[in-house]
Every structure is written in structure tokens, then in C-alpha cells.
């Protein structure tokens, strides 16, 4: 069981380092996929299967697909992959920092602590709370998503026209 969690964490770190080392967005999306899959794996090892499914569906199936289409439309002629020198330096720095941090960790038993909710599982209980006592937050989240749409549309509205529109 410990090995499964360890694999999940390992994949998560590799995916996040792959994104944070600033390659071109096409390759960073691959790092995001790997990180998200490992994250869902970790959620399953903690017992939160519904949350894992929701994350996979919305993040990878929604956000990342939209991002991939947008990145494909704004194409780069010579994209920087992980063999590019600047990206590689970032990867090396992150690995050194991780190894230094690893040497400071003393015990790892906190990873295998499980929540002790006897009647309601964490992930379904959270969903229930969002629709029951957290109704206001649900409305607020819906409003925020709508506002995000307007924000993005406003930001990208007059890009091709430059600064001649203050007439």
C-alpha cells in the first residue's frame, strides 16, 4: 500500500516538475496530464474515489482539452521541449531542491493516516455539504464561473485592433 502511495507521489512530482520547468505549453500539457493522473491515483489510495473521478473528468476532460485546442490555434514555430537548455536547468534545480528537502523529512507515517468518518465518506459528504449548508457557496461558484467567462471575453475582445478604439 505504501508503494502505491509512493508511486502516486512520484508521478505527481515528475509531472509538476515537467510543468514548472517552463517548456513550451504543448509539453507542459503533457506534464499536467501526468500530474493530474498521479493526483487522481493518490486520491484513490486515500479512498476518495468520487473526487478522483470528478477531477479526471473536469480537469483533464474539460480544462485541458480546451487548453489544448487554444494552444494548437496559437501555434509556436520552434517550441521548447525538455531537451532545451533553459528548461533542463530548471529541472535540475527542482531536483536538487527536492533532494535537499527529502533529506530533512524524518518520518512519513502521516501519509498513511486515514480519516475516521464512520458514517459519511469524505468525498460524498463534501458534495452533500455543498448542496445543503453550502448552498450560498454553490451559487457564488456558479456566479464566479459566469464572471470568468465575461472576463476572458472582455480581455480578448479588441486584441487585434490595438489601441485605436478610444474614440
Amino acid at each position, binding site marked *: 500500500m505504501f508503494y502505491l502511495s509512493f508511486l502516486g507521489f512520484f508521478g505527481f512530482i515528475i509531472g509538476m516538475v515537467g510543468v514548472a520547468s517552463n517548456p513550451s505549453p504543448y509539453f507542459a500539457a503533457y506534464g499536467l496530464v501526468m500530474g493530474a493522473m498521479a493526483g487522481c491515483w493518490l486520491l484513490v489510495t486515500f479512498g476518495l474515489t468520487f473526487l478522483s473521478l470528478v477531477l479526471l473528468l473536469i480537469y483533464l476532460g474539460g480544462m485541458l482539452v480546451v487548453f489544448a485546442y487554444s494552444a494548437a490555434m496559437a501555434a509556436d514555430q520552434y517550441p521548447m521541449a525538455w531537451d532545451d537548455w533553459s528548461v533542463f536547468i530548471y529541472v535540475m534545480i527542482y531536483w536538487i531542491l527536492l533532494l535537499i528537502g527529502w533529506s530533512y523529512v524524518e518520518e512519513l507515517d502521516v501519509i498513511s493516516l486515514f480519516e475516521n468518518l464512520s458514517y459519511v465518506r469524505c468525498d460524498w459528504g463534501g458534495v452533500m455539504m455543498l448542496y445543503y449548508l453550502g448552498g450560498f457557496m454553490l451559487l457564488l461558484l456558479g456566479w464566479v464561473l459566469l464572471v470568468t467567462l465575461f472576463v476572458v471575453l472582455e480581455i480578448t475582445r479588441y486584441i487585434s485592433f490595438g489601441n485605436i*478604439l478610444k474614440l
Partner: protein
Amino acid sequence: MNPFALAILLISMFIGTMVTLTSSHWLLAWLGLEISTLAIIPLMITDHHPRATEATTKYFLTQATAATLILFSALINAWNTGMWELKELSPLSSNMLSLALMMKMGLAPLHFWLPEVLQGLSLTTGLILSTWQKIAPIALMYMIFSSLNIQVLMIMGLLSIIVGGWIGLNQVHLRKVIAASSIAHLGWMMIILPFSPHIMMLTFLIYILMTTAMFLSFKIFNATQIKMLTIAWTKMPVLVALMMFILLSLGGLPPTTGFLPKWFILQELTLQHIPSIATVMAISSLLSLFFYLRLTYALTLTYSPNTVNSTIMWRFKFNNMFYLPLMVVMVLATFLLPLTPSLISF
């Protein structure tokens, strides 16, 4: 901008700050901060020229980083203590959270985004950024004041006063001067916070009044650099005379309102037996006073060499919507000192 989109964005900005102010759960507080960040982004990028775009990008990145740090420290707090309440903070999360909130407000040593962001915006948007967007983080600091680390706040506050004074000294662009003044005023607020949050709120209110007066005056003069202030007397001589009082109020000179917070902060620090910090703060604000006096000099005290130095501008636009708010705020920002007892009754 499209009026419907503008209405939605302004409403969302209001909702964001209100949600943070009325929250008792860290997730809701974080959510309010993110909503207000998101809603102001299109307002900042409205004219789409490269400086505005760059300012918007810098603002978004720093605010997103700070908000992530807030969420992270709230999670650490929930993991350590099991409490999501706003006031129940363990020392580790308290330190991280205060650092993140101070990054959101623009305190030294996390102030580097503020001058460039403020420079890239129009004066009205800069006003919103300097006043409304600071309400939510200040309110959160007010609510968690009892669990804040005094050393962290003192160091960052003192550094902000000194850095704010030094940044403003070499500036010609007025928006960068206002950014420096904002950094210095927030430094004064943060130092007094662990001792008396009430005085901090008084300082914040007076800071809002003075900054609003300054921004609206600059908007009416249409001045974004000191050289544009030198011809401001031709546009509205009355405002030039009153602007001198605003600038002296910002510098904290006695008969004006701006003296009020400095007075109470220095008194409170002396009563808490740390007069050395109070001395250093008072001396460091001399740096800020110098650049306010330089603005006063350029604006009010001298006539700069000009082509025809005789008359007021021939065209006088009176249908400006900022005149009434400016009148109210200017009176409040200059002449409120005699009302001190009613301001501090607690």
C-alpha cells in the same frame, strides 16, 4: 467598455470584497479575494496597450501567487488544528498567511509589483486598485490580528516605510509616487496592527480619503507626471491651492487630517515602551514628506517657465463627474483633525 460587462464586473468586485468581509471560513475568504482579483482584470486591461497588458499580467500573477499561499496556509492550519475559523491560527500558518496578505497589499519586501502595475493603469482604475482592492486584505489582517507575529509585522512595516520613502524619491511619474506613498502608509498600518487594530482601521480610512483626493485631483488636472502638474494652475487654480493641503496631509503635517493616524500610532508605540521604533518610523517618513513637498513645489509654489504665463486655459469643462466626490473627500482629507474625539471613541 460594454455597459453590461462593466456592470457585471463592478458588481463582482463588490461581491468579492463583501464575501471576504463577511466570511468566517478561510475558503470563503480566499474565494472573495479571488473574485475581486478576477473582476478587476478586464478593467485594468481596457485600453489594451502594451503597458496596460503588462501591468495586468503582473498584477494577476502576484495576486494569484498570494492567494495560493493563503489557501495553502489555510489548509495547513486546518490540518494542524482542525479549525477552518478565521481566528484560529497556528503560528506557522499565521506567518505564511500574513506574508501572503501583505504581498496582496504591496508591502515591502513584496512590493515590487506595485509601482509598475499602478503606472500601467489609467488614473481611475489606479484609484480602484489603491483603495477598494486593499479593503479585503486589510479586513482579513484586522480579523486575525491576535495571532499575528509581532516581529514579522514590525520588520515588514518598518521596511515598507523606509522603502516607500526611497522609491518615491526618484520618481517623476505621479502614479509611481502614489504607489510609493501607498507602500509607506501600509507600513505604518502594519506596525500598529498587533497593538491596536482600531488605530489601524482609522489609519486605513484616512489613507483611503487622502489617496482618493489625490487621484481625483490628478484626474481632473489630467496629470500623470510632475511636468504636467506645473501647468495645472492654468486648468483650475482653486484645486491647485487645495491640492497643496492634500499633499501636506499625506505627508502627515499637523493641522491636517494626515497627522491624526501618525499621532496616535506614535503615542501607542510609546505607551507600549518601544519608542525606538517610533523614532525610526517618524524619521523615515521624512523621505516621503520630501517627495510630497516636491510635488507641492512643482504644483503650487512656483510658476514653471512656460510660453505664455498669463491666463487660465480658454476651455473649461465643468461636466466632470468627479467634482462632487472630490469636494467631499478633499474636505474630509484635510480638515478632519478637530473632530478627533469623535473619530476615536472606543
